[in-house]
Each structure stands twice: as C-alpha cells, then as structure tokens.
C-alpha cells in the first residue's frame, strides 16, 4: 500500500493538513499572468517560490514556463524587498523585454509588508520601468485562501488596465477562470459560433500549449493583449465563469468602469454549458446556431446511449471549487452519485452549493471545503466508490483502493491531453464522458468473469 498509514477511522484534525487538495496563492497568480500576451510573471519573494511554481506548471503543461523572482536573501527579508524588485525591473526589461511584468507577492514579502504599488511608482519614477511598459501588482499572501484565490487576485489586477472611454465597443468580456488553454480556445470557438465579439482574459491558449518548431520564444503568440485589456473597460458587459476564479475581477470592472457583469458557473457538463450558451445568447441578443445545438445533441446522445454504465455509480471528487461545483452538477445530471466531495480552498459557500446540487440523491453526500485528500481517502475507505475524479495526486488513493481514476483539474503530472482537448462546452462534456466511460469500462473489462466478458458495451 502506498498510503499504508491512512486509517479508516476518521479523527478530527484542527491543525494538521495531510495531502492537501490545494496549494498557495502565488502559483495561481503566475498561471493567470501567463495568459497576458508578452507578460513575464514575477514572484516577489524567495527564489524557491518561483522555482516551485515554474516546476509545477512545467510538469503539468510540459512546456517552458518563464517567470522571474526577486530572489530575496536574509537581508531583503529584514530590510524589505524594494531594492530587489527595482533591480529586477531593470534587469527584466533590459534582458527579456516583456510588454508587461505581472508581479505577485508571497508569504515572505507580505509578512514584511512590501507595498508593490509604491515600488512600481518608484520604478516608473526612476526609469527602471520604461514608460511604455506595464507592471501589474497582485497581493497574494500564501497564507490566505489557495491557488484559486491567487488566480482570482491576479485576474482582478488585470482590470487595472481597463479604460473607460465612455464609448462602448460592443464587445463582451469573458473571464474564463482557471481552465486549460484548450478550454480557453474552446470558449473562443463557442463565442465565435454564436457570432459574439469577445475579449477573453486571461487567455493561456497559444502560451502553454505551443508547438515544437525548433524555435523558442519566451513570449509566445497567445495571450490577451494589453490593448484588449484596456478595451475591457468599454465592453458592454462581462461574463465571469466561476465565482471563485472570476467573480472578483468582474465586479471590479463594474465598479471601475461601469461594465455590468454576470457570474455563472464554469461551463463543464450539459447544464452549465446550457446556461453559458443561453446567457451569452440572451445578453448578446444572438441566435444559437444549428452547429452548436448539434454539439449539445451529440452530448445528450452519448449520455443516453451509455446511461446504463453511468447510472448510480458512486464518485469521489477532489478539485477546485468552481470546477468541482460544475462537475458535481454534471454527474448528478447524468444520474451518477457524487458521494465524497472535497476542495482544499476554504469557503462555506462551496459546501452550500454542493448540498443544493446533490439534494435528493439516494445516498449520503460528504462534502468539505478546506478539506484534504487524506480525509477524502478516509471517506472512501468507509464508503467505497466506483470512480475517483481528481488531479494526479489521486493516483495513490486510486491504486491503493483499486478504483479507476479520471484525471481532471490541476495539476495533471502524469498524463497528456489536457493541453489539447477541452473539457468545457458540449464537446468538452463528450470528452469528459468518454474519459469517465473509459475508466469504468476498462475496469469492467478487467473484472468481469470470463463467463460474462462482453464484446459489445
């Protein structure tokens, strides 16, 4: 057993987190910043933070992830990191020449109280930041919230660039939240089908799923441009996907630039995608084209065709709040039973949403925000499931408990495909379903006795 010391008996833990279902803010800020074209994320703290975030993102994407750090030493930690950051501004713009540096703090610089915006001001004043360049500042203390919070905070920081010229530009802002590059591409494809002119931010497609061509570009072609970020202030409205990831930024834009906003769930699965499409249709006053309706029908077709393998199968899920909420709804909608649900990110609203979605299911449902994989595993030992949906860390539980695993969420360190194939939208729903069915049917093919081994499923 890989996790041989995990007891079935659950005792309350107040201080000890074991095998977390989250990580800390800065990596979220870094991922978000990579969704701006020509942006170098910068970690204001000890160089280890930056190294860890880059490594994790690299392992997930198998792509170069460039980011700089203030490389604090003991001195900086005592006297403040201003000198380091000023030096970093100068070096970065001289050597790497990005359009924008997106700085986020760490627990270190937060604890010592560095004021990023003040340092930025000084940077401009002293010419360390060229006049035509931008610096975004996000306060992302590691000891508050989770990587999701950091993502949200950096996205909110992006709205600083928004300019309200007083003249609407007819565009719709879409804040996709922490989804894969392929998901962002898919959202753009869907809005394209609907014929809506949108600004998607952040947008990591083209950044973290790049080609191999013999050339390396520190700033690949993808990402939301500065011009687009500026234009978000003149948009007719903002559609934010996921309260945890995108709600703050959308409301900030409303506050700053009077861009009205709607916050809905991330479009994973049939119903959430229905709401996504229907909201877009309604707010933009467009018709849903046959091609998109056909994709919906294909998803529905697949659900109905394979319903017998899904029906009342028990599922354990770990992941981030916005994703897990949408996934739970999807599973319920196809008659599966999500019975153990954990997110590492704190927030009672999460538990409330899950309770609402799972109401009336013919089973007890365990749900916990600020939970960990250790607890999820213990739940699974007490009430076994047919399937686990989680990031790669779930593989240890899956192997020990001999339960099929669908890798979904962040990080995925041991399989490929998430960069290239979306799981949002109807097509994404088909892919999710293919994965879920594949996991369940592979297990069936493995376990069926020879007397009832099946050719046709």
């Amino acid at each position, binding site marked *: 057993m890989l996790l041989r010391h995990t007891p079935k008996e659950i005792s309350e833990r107040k201080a*000890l*987190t074991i095998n977390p279902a*989250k990580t800390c803010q800065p990596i979220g800020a870094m991922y978000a910043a990579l969704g701006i074209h020509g942006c170098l994320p910068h970690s204001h703290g000890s160089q280890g933070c930056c190294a860890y975030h880059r490594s994790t993102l690299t392992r997930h994407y198998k792509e170069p992830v460039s980011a700089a750090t203030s490389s604090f030493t003991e001195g900086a930690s005592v006297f403040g990191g201003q000198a380091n950051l000023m030096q970093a501004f100068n*070096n970065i713009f001289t050597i790497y020449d990005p359009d924008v540096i997106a700085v986020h703090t760490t*627990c270190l610089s937060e604890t010592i109280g560095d004021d990023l915006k003040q340092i930025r001001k000084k940077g401009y004043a002293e010419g360390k930041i060229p006049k035509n360049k931008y610096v975004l500042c996000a306060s992302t203390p590691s*000891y508050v919230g989770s990587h999701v919070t950091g993502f949200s905070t950096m996205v909110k920081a992006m709205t600083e660039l928004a300019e309200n010229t007083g003249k609407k530009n007819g565009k719709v802002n879409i804040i996709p939240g922490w989804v894969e590059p392929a998901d962002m591409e898919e959202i753009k494809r869907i809005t394209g089908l609907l014929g809506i002119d949108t600004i998607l931010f952040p947008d990591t497609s083209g950044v973290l799923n790049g080609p191999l061509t013999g050339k*390396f570009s520190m700033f690949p072609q993808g990402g939301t441009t500065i011009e687009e970020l500026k234009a978000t202030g003149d948009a007719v409205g903002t559609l934010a996907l996921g309260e945890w990831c995108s709600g703050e930024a959308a409301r900030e834009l409303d506050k700053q630039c009077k861009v009205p906003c709607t916050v809905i769930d991330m479009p994973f699965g049939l119903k959430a995608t229905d709401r996504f499409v229907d909201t877009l249709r309604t707010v933009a006053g467009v018709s849903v084209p046959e091609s998109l309706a056909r994709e919906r029908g294909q998803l529905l077709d697949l659900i109905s065709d394979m319903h017998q393998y899904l029906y009342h199968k028990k599922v354990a899920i770990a992941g981030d709040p916005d994703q897990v909420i949408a996934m739970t709804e999807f599973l319920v909608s196809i008659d599966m039973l999500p019975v153990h649900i954990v997110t590492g990110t704190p927030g009672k609203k999460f538990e409330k949403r899950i309770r609402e979605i799972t109401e009336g299911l013919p089973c007890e449902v365990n749900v916990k925000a600020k939970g960990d994989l250790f607890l999820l595993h213990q739940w699974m030992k007490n009430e076994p499931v047919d399937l686990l949906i989680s990031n790669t860390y779930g593989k240890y539980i899956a192997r020990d408990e001999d339960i099929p695993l669908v890798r979904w969420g962040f990080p995925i360190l041991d399989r490929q495909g998430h960069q290239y194939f979306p799981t949002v939208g109807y097509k994404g729903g088909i892919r999710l379903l293919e994965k879920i069915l594949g996991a369940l049917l592979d297990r069936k093919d493995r376990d069926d006795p020879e007397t009832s081994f099946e050719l046709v499923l």
Partner: protein
Amino acid sequence: MTTAPEKKPVQWDPTDIKAELLKKYPPKVARKRARQILINEALENDTPEILANVRTIPGIITMRGCTYAGCKGVILGPTRDIVNLVHGPIGCSFYAWLTRRNQTDAGEDGEQYMNYTFSTDMQDSDIIFGGEKKLEMAIQEAYDTFHPKAIAVFATCPVGLIGDDIHTVARKMKEKFGDCNVFAFSCEGYKGVSQSAGHHIANNQVFRHIVGTNDEPQEGEYRINLLGEYNIGGDGFEIDRIFKKCGITNVATFSGNSTYDQFATSHQADLNCVMCHRSINYVADMLETKFGIPWVKVNFIGAEATAKSLRKIAAYFGDQELIDRVEKVIEEEMPAVKAAQEDVLPRTSGKTAMIFVGGSRAHHYQELFKEMGMKTISAGYEFAHRDDYEGRHVLPKLKVDADSRNIEEIEVEPDETRYRPRKTPEELKALEEAGLKFKSYEGLLPDMEEGTLVIDDLNQYEAEKLVELMKPDIFCAGIKEKFSIQKLGIPMKQLHSYDSGGPYAGFKGAINFYNEIDRLVNSRVWSYMKAPWQENPQLSGAYVWE
C-alpha cells in the same frame, strides 16, 4: 533508427561565446556574471578562480531553488520513517510532495511516509498571532494518527519573520511523547543563496539530533556509510546491490531510502564514502572529528568510476578476500556494460553535451558521457561552492560573506565515549602513499578539457544562447529548463530527477544511461522540425493538376 540530419559544424571561440552571453546584460550584471563564466584552462593543481555560491541577481530567471527546498526537499525528503511536517502556508509542503523521484522501499517494518505530505497550512491569523500553538497541535495530531519514530519540523519563510520558536516547540513535544524524537529545521527559504544552505541546515540537525544516538551493535563486515546519495530513480538501490554482492555493509545512506535508525547507528561504520561532495562533505568531516571515521570521495556514476570506487573501498579495508570479491564483481558486471557501450558507441561518439546541475552531478555525469565517446563542452553547477569547481585546496581561501555567515557551522569535538580512530596515522599514511586519498576532491575544472565553458548558476537567457551558439547534441539540467531547450530542437535530459529513467549509478545504471542517451541523441523525432512545405516552400500559385 535514423540519426537527425547532420548539423552544420559550428565554429566557436569560447571568448566570443562568453562575450555574447554577457552582451545584453546591464553593466553591473555583466560584471558579476563575467566572474561566474569561466573559460577552462585548468591544469593539474592549478585551476582558475570562479565566483560561486553568491546571490542570484533579482529579475534573472534562475535555475535555483531555496533553502527550504534543499533541506526538506533534498535531504530529509528521502527519509521514509520520519514524519516531515512543514510549518508554513500550504504551498511549500505541496510542492515538495513526491516530485523528486526518490525511490523508497517500505522495508520490513513497513514505515513509509514518503507518499504523504504534512503541513500546518498557516493562515493569516497564525501570521498575526503566531503559529506555535498550531504547530504544537499539528505535531500532536501527527503523533496521535501515526505514532512515528520521529517528527521533523521545517520552517518556511514567514516562520522566522514572525518569530515562531519551532525548536522549543519541538523539544517540548519530544519530551511530552517520550517515544518520538521531534526536532526542527530553521530552513526559511530566504536563507543563504541557494538550496546549498538548506542541505547544510538539514545535515547539521540530522547530525545533532539523530547521528550516534543508537549504540546497539549492527551486523555486517566492511561497514561503510554512503554520504550524499539520494536514490533518485533507484540509484541507491543499484549501489546497494553492488555493495551486497561485494560483501560491503552499507550502514547508512545519507539520505536516499534512509531510516531514522540508519542515521542513529551510522557512527558505527568504519569508512565514509562521499558521493555528492557539495551537499555533505561537512558531515563527513564532522563524522571523522567526532567518531574517528575517515572519508574518501567516491563516484558511482560511470562504470569505470564505480569500479574505481569499489577498489578504493576494498583498498581501505585492505582485506584480500574483499579485494578479490570486488574484482570478481567487476569482472562479472563489466561484460554487459561493455556490450552496451559497444552497441551505442558508433551512434554516440563525437557528440557533445552540456550539463548544468547540482552539486556534483555536473561533474560525475561527464564520466558517463566520456564512456559514450561524448564530450562535455560546457558545464556548471546550480548551487555549488568554489571547492566543487576548483577542489578542496581552495577551502581555506573561501571568504565568509553575509549570506553564508547565517548558515550555522557546527563545532564538533571528538565524542568522549564513541570516538575511535579506524586507522592509525601510520596506516592512513601507508594507504595515502598507495594512492588512496582521504578527504580529497579535486573539483570539476581539472576533469574538463581546456577551452570548455564552465558557468556557475546558469540562467535561462544564457542557456538559450549557449545552445543556439554551440548546438550541443544534448543538454542536461532540470525540469524548468527542459522544454525551453527542447523547443530549440535539442534533446534535454533532466539530471536532477532523470525525467522518467534511472538508475544511472553503478553498472546497470551505466547501461541504462548509455541507452537513454542513445535514444535521446539519435531519436528520429528531432528531424521533423521542418514541415515539408517549409523545406520546399515554392508555391505553384495554381492547381498543378491544371
């Protein structure tokens, strides 16, 4: 298997390369980096000076990690029966969770916490009001749930700043439990200039809190400790296989696949064999001072190096039976190595490598490349000190700067009851005269060819430039570097974690490495970079069928 299309021969002069690397830097940066980029002209016992173990320049995209990573990640990470509890925000614990490919066998006792990560998950209230209470409670919960032999506590950045006294908490809990050793590491990420400081902090505490605490006699003859081997990809398993075959008893590995009791009994060994000089040479010194155990530098990376290291150990013990057995083992193991070598040589000879890792690996792995007929045209360390480049003779000359001053140096005295010189001064002298050097390491530079480029703390910008200019056949570094190099069409091998491979130590490891490098430098894949329409881009402008 086809070879990638022949590259154009690149004519380069190391001086030009160096100039090119520095060209774009602001003057201050250029000046500092100039002292860290060295054109090798090492002669025996005369090596040029390189600037190493100094701060990374802010804003530079560095390969380096932090002190916490060196302490928790590298040194204590591979200890299997210690509950390693990280006191801090969740990230530090999360990132050091299972990412280093240290292999571990749960052993007969079955205690194996490597697949877990433990954290106090500090919240803002802990930062404001202090985290000692939470730490104490977390230790208690860990003890209640697992009843481990030991709990190690690691400080992350804010811990030092807010003044949590983790050592006092640890001591208190140790006393409370009675049957569980609890100790702490002040390895805040901002300390030192790289992981190296973390290794030092880790090793000091292991030495202070565990080493020499168990005097129960241990079985086995020819008893050694293996220092600075972390069982990445199973290296340690392969070395242990060879030791076992030779009849050599490995009392304790610091710290691959290690247990608490191994450290505790390690003072009973009769020889310390140092693999990674950087991360652990001071422990070897302390073990000698306190317990009287001499140390030699060994290297099990490379088949010849392995044979040489085994012979060193045999020579040290001086027992003909052991000497014969070692020779027999080498004789048995080498044919397979040679066969593999001969298989790959026609495809690998003359190719070039660059290595930027570690510690010691940027040195050790050159052995393996040499065995494949490949030349290392540029190399450097990520967190080494001058002695790792220039050899231990520079140690007295090293200056203590602001950063290294903060890393504790333990003062060690001979142990009152346990100090026992393993050899008489005469014996040691005789062994030295017979060629067995104690406490000796000549560093990287003398082993590299003249005119090669040796670069400390290489960064992303320089790496890309180097590859563009010198076009090596393979580049070796870490995961952060991997894909920016590969985008250039050059295969990149991780030598921190070996990507997915290993072991590369010992005899079987050498074979694995030959095959792996053969795969990388001769894969068809790198020949597809250009699409046919790029190779032959003329357009007819009209349907050719017409």
